[in-house]
């Protein structure tokens, strides 16, 4: 570990670079940042402006700073907001539960096949998630390979169905997002120093204790990232409610409403206001969650 040359080099390099203070970083970064400014930052402001306007798509919209758009949007769509939130929480919890053992085993016991397992986990991404969801609607259909078979051998009543239920929607979203749960879990588990686990077992802790007291706490950053990466798209999803929920009563989510307002009803102000409400819910949720995790770690330390 003794390498006296290293720090020297490190000191020299920045000193050499500093006087040059070139325009290079600005030239390199400005095209991309300009693109993001025009097509990401400004559209957010355009949506903010639109969310306060009044009018119809035929007569045009006028800026009247009508903040009641927001209260209207919440009042009219409370049901969908709550359902999206509930589905998001259920999906995140289920995804964490089923993903953790997978990430754990690959990180600790994958050996030299780790990248093979990761490749297999990412395989579904080579087919558009809309088409994978359509495939699930085939698998779960009333006369499909699962329900059809179970019905023909008499294990299920003829009228039993999965499509059009909240279960189908939640299962579909979980399926779509569980790879995003696994990856951050895997990354944080993979970084855990194995000698810490060894030390715990050497000090006579059982394997379960070693897992609960060493591995699990050290993987909390991964759990945190996994929860955010899973819950945000889960709450905003509308494809599963459409394809697997079949728009049955009680399955539509807030994303379906935003999509309808924007693309069918062309009630842009209401759609924009709802999109902002959705984002606010997510940001507030993330902040509360970060607080909870943060205080937990303080009490533990």
């Amino acid at each position: 570990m003794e390498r006296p040359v290293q720090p020297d080099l490190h000191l020299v390099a920045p000193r050499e670079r500093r006087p040059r203070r070139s325009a290079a970083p600005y030239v390199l970064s400005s095209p991309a940042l300009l693109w993001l400014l025009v097509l990401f930052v400004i559209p957010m402001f355009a949506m903010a402006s639109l969310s306060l306007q009044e009018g119809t798509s035929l007569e045009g919209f006028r800026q009247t700073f009508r903040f009641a758009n927001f209260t209207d949007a919440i009042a009219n769509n409370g049901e969908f907001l709550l359902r999206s939130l509930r589905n998001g929480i259920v999906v995140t919890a289920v995804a964490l539960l089923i993903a953790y053992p997978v990430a754990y085993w690959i990180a600790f016991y994958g050996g030299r096949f780790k990248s093979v397992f990761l490749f297999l986990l990412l395989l579904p991404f080579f087919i558009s998630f809309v088409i994978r969801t359509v495939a699930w609607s085939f698998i779960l259909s009333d006369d499909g390979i699962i329900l059809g078979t179970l019905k023909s051998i008499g294990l299920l009543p003829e009228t039993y169905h999965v499509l059009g239920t909240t279960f189908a929607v939640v299962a579909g979203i979980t399926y779509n997002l569980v790879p995003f749960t696994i990856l951050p879990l895997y990354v944080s588990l993979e970084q855990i120093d194995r000698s810490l686990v060894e030390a715990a077992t050497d000090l006579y802790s059982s394997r379960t204790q070693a897992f609960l007291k060493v591995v699990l706490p050290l993987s909390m950053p991964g759990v945190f990232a996994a929860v955010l990466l899973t819950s945000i798209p889960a709450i905003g999803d509308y494809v599963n409610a459409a394809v697997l929920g079949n728009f049955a009563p009680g399955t539509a989510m807030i994303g379906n409403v935003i999509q309808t307002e924007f693309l069918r009803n062309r009630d842009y102000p209401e759609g924009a206001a709802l999109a902002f409400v959705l984002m606010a819910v997510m940001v507030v949720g993330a902040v509360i969650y970060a607080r909870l995790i943060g205080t937990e770690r303080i009490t533990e330390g």
Partner: protein
Amino acid sequence: MSAVVTRPPQVRLPEAVARKPRRSWTRFVLPTYVTAFILYLSFPIFIIILFSFNQTRGGFGTSPRVKTTWLGFTTDWYGRVFELSDLTATVRHSLTIGFASAIAATILGTLLGLALARYRFRGRGGADFAIFLSISSPEIVLGAALASFFVALGVTRGFGTLFLSHTMFSIAFVAVTVRARAAGLDRSLEAAAMDLGATPVTAFVKVTLPLLAPGILAGFLLAFALSMDDFVISQFTQGPFQMFPTWVFGATRVGIPPHVFVFATIIFLTGATLALLLALVSRRRG
């Protein structure tokens, strides 16, 4: 390591003996679970490939729809894959937007990634934040914002708005990929080239660029895959210029023609093969 050598062996032995019988069957629980999990993840892919060979029943005149039950094996649909001209057009649209936006995002994202990896500059924190936000924003909010923007400008949505939007959401992913690669590069190689008389541009093109290439290629493929997979932002920004996933989504209500599963199978096999080749090549290079 030295601790292992100096540790008296009798401390370890009884423990190992005591533990072994208890673990013998539980050892198989996790591997079995992981295998089952991978099968579950790829189950829809099997179904898509399988049903691309499914026969359909139905009268003449109406275009065929895949049935949810297995009616018999046929390779017909592979011969007739280009039959539905509107569907074929959407696949062409998706590929065109995929390539165009991936090329643009690769150029912009590579430059941004390089700037972030190599320089400390004013606005670096802001650039980092913009990357983080654009990756973590929910797609539906991005889509709604872009739609609002194009509506406010009175722009007709189509190829142009799709290209701009797809490039936008891919930039951050390319930048992150290239930055990771650039951060791991030994800068003394470039310095050595310049010490040997190369101009900064020559040194960059001859030394740095080849070393960055795997990162840039990975960024390009990621951008292409993201664009091909995208549904939400496309739906909000496409107008009448339909993409493959949005067409399929629209078709779910009337039934999916088997051609969709054939296209999906071809796209899947091509993508998976390319990724596998890339992984093998980059492994060989080290």
